[in-house]
């Protein structure tokens, strides 16, 4: 009986010691591996080091160069086009022949008139002869009549002469189109063999007056560059065909408000969606231009203030206020742990990609959380990618 009591006691003790060892073993296991276990469940974040510097504003806009002044040249007399001497896009000098018209009918008319004049001259000679005869005969009345007739004929010849002159003049003027100034053929409607098409035969731009470019951009952004009228501006022409890309200078002629447009794509929707637009008119005087070139304007300016540049994707909104999350190293029980720390920010300047925050918000080398696998809160432990 006593022996069995002892046996029971021993068995009990064995069980308890096993239990105790199990407990200690489990605790030891969790002590050693809980960090590992935990880190698997922690939200994963991708980070970036904040860069120090100023915000660089960039405005990139492109447009097509349009001539400031261009003139439509029409078929003056409605004649058929005999020959087109220029091509579209060709540069022309002042006075250069552009289009020749078929003037044969007018020339024929001129010849007719000349023949008429000859006839009248011959008739005049007849009258002169008659006049001479009457003087010799002494027929007073016949002399007077012949003199009157002679004068009438003379007037007729003068009129005819003028008519011929005018016709000749007209022929000279209207058988061809000449360039009114140094320019470029912008449009060519004239077709050889056809008469007027209802459209101007030619459109010629005025090279001497240069080209213009209209750019519409975000007003707020444009204001940052503090542009002024008469300021020169650098532009680039894109390479086209054999023409290599090159840069040229323009001068701002006008800065005006364009109609505001609602920006629906604006993420966050904080700015009520209205973006003030501004129009920039730039004048370019460059003799090598033909008009119609694609021109790109690139403006860049670094803000005067310095701070930390934070990518916009790292900025979170909470009502009106904004904040970023940075990585903080904390001393944990089992080595260092990383914790997400909220940093409220007020933005001074921002672009589409970056926001500048003031220098005192971060320390040198601190990491900013860009993305997280789960929504983070202040103080959450995180796993660095």
């Amino acid at each position, binding site marked *: 009986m006593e022996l069995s009591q002892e046996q029971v006691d021993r068995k009990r003790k064995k069980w308890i010691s096993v*239990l105790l060892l199990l*407990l*200690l073993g489990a*605790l*030891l296991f*969790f*002590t050693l591996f*809980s960090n590992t276990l*935990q880190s698997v469940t922690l939200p994963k974040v991708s980070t970036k080091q904040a860069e120090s510097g100023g915000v660089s504003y960039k405005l990139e806009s492109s447009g097509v160069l349009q001539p400031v002044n261009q003139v439509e040249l029409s078929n003056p007399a409605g004649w058929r086009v005999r020959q087109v001497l220029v091509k579209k896009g060709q540069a022309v000098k002042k006075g250069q022949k552009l289009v020749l018209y078929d003037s044969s009918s007018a020339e024929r008319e001129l010849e007719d008139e000349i023949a008429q004049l000859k006839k009248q001259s011959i008739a005049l000679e007849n009258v002169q002869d008659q006049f001479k005869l009457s003087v010799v005969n002494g027929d007073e009345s016949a002399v007077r009549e012949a003199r009157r007739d002679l004068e009438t004929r003379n007037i007729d010849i003068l009129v005819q002469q003028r008519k011929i002159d005018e016709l000749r003049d007209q022929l000279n003027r209207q058988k061809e189109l000449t360039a009114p100034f140094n320019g470029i053929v912008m449009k060519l409607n004239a077709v050889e063999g056809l008469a007027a098409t209802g459209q101007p035969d030619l459109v010629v731009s005025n090279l001497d007056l240069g080209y213009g470019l209209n750019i519409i951009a975000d007003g707020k952004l444009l204001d940052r560059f503090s542009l002024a009228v008469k300021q020169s501006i650098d532009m680039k022409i894109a390479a086209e065909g054999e023409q290599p890309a090159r840069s040229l200078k323009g001068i701002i002629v006008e800065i005006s408000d364009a109609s505001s447009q609602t920006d629906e794509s604006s993420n966050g929707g904080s700015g009520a969606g209205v973006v003030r637009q501004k129009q920039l008119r730039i004048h370019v005087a460059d003799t090598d231009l033909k008009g119609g070139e694609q021109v790109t304007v690139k403006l860049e300016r670094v803000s005067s203030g310095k701070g930390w540049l934070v990518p916009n994707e790292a900025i979170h909104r909470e009502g009106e206020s904004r904040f970023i999350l940075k990585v903080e190293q904390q001393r944990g*029980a089992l080595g260092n742990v990383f914790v997400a720390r909220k940093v409220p920010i007020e933005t001074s300047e921002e672009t589409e990609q970056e926001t500048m925050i003031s220098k005192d918000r971060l320390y040198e080398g601190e990491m900013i959380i860009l993305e997280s696998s789960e929504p983070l809160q202040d103080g959450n432990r995180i796993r660095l990618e």
Partner: protein
Amino acid sequence: MLVIRTIQKVLLTALMGAFGLLLLFPIIITSTNSLMTEQELKINYGVIGKLTEVTSSGADTFVNLKLLPDKVTLKQYSELLVHSPQYLLLFWNSVGLVVPIIIGQTVVAALAAYAFAKLNFRGRDSLFMVYLLTMLMPFQVTLVPNYIIADKLGLLHSTGAVILPGVFAAFGVFMLRQFMLHIPYAYIEAAKMDGAGHLRIFLTLILPMVKSGLAALVILLFVDYWNMVEQPLIFINDPFKQPLSVFLSRLSGEWDKVFAASMLYMAPMVLLFLYAETYFIEGIQLSGIKG
């Protein structure tokens, strides 16, 4: 007569049972509450620590003691074991403090008790009285001298500052001396006649005889030092070197793991007690001390 005796017995049992339950109640509460969800605990115990605010606002000032969880969950344990490794580290801190103290004090106390009980030298009893005095004094009295000594020894803010006073505490000496007094001199004289020295007598004769006393001492020391808060709080200022007991005393806000942490902290103590229960009872009875 028999009826009266039976009634007496029933009444006594009922009374004892009631007292027993009362004593067990905190443990039961802790164990059942360790299975509750954080939300439930917050609802029930949220008023703790802000009683003054609650009274001023006129709301319910009573803590809602709840025995059975609405929803049984092991969330607290997983939170504790996986998500808060600091508690586990502190647990091992506790072990690291308690084990050296127990081993040291048992060795020192056994040797000293042998000297006080079985050796004859001048001033033995008066020296023992002095020893006893340090035991009788409350811990708070010796705190400042201990602090100064630890500082002089350069042990401040290290575990040594807690372990050293623990190793040389008087309680073990007193308890084991009581045990050894029961051992008749005849054993020792017989051993001496056989040519055994003091060390041999101590190791082969006395120690096996006071085995139950040693077991009782180990348990009592374990309970005592496992639960200490003040010493580590004062001597160790690095929160990551302090034992779990200090941390548990501050854990009131963290409802998601406070009861589970308490349970885990209690477990080694309970298991140790169950293991050495028989020795413990025997030892207490023999020495005439009550825990």
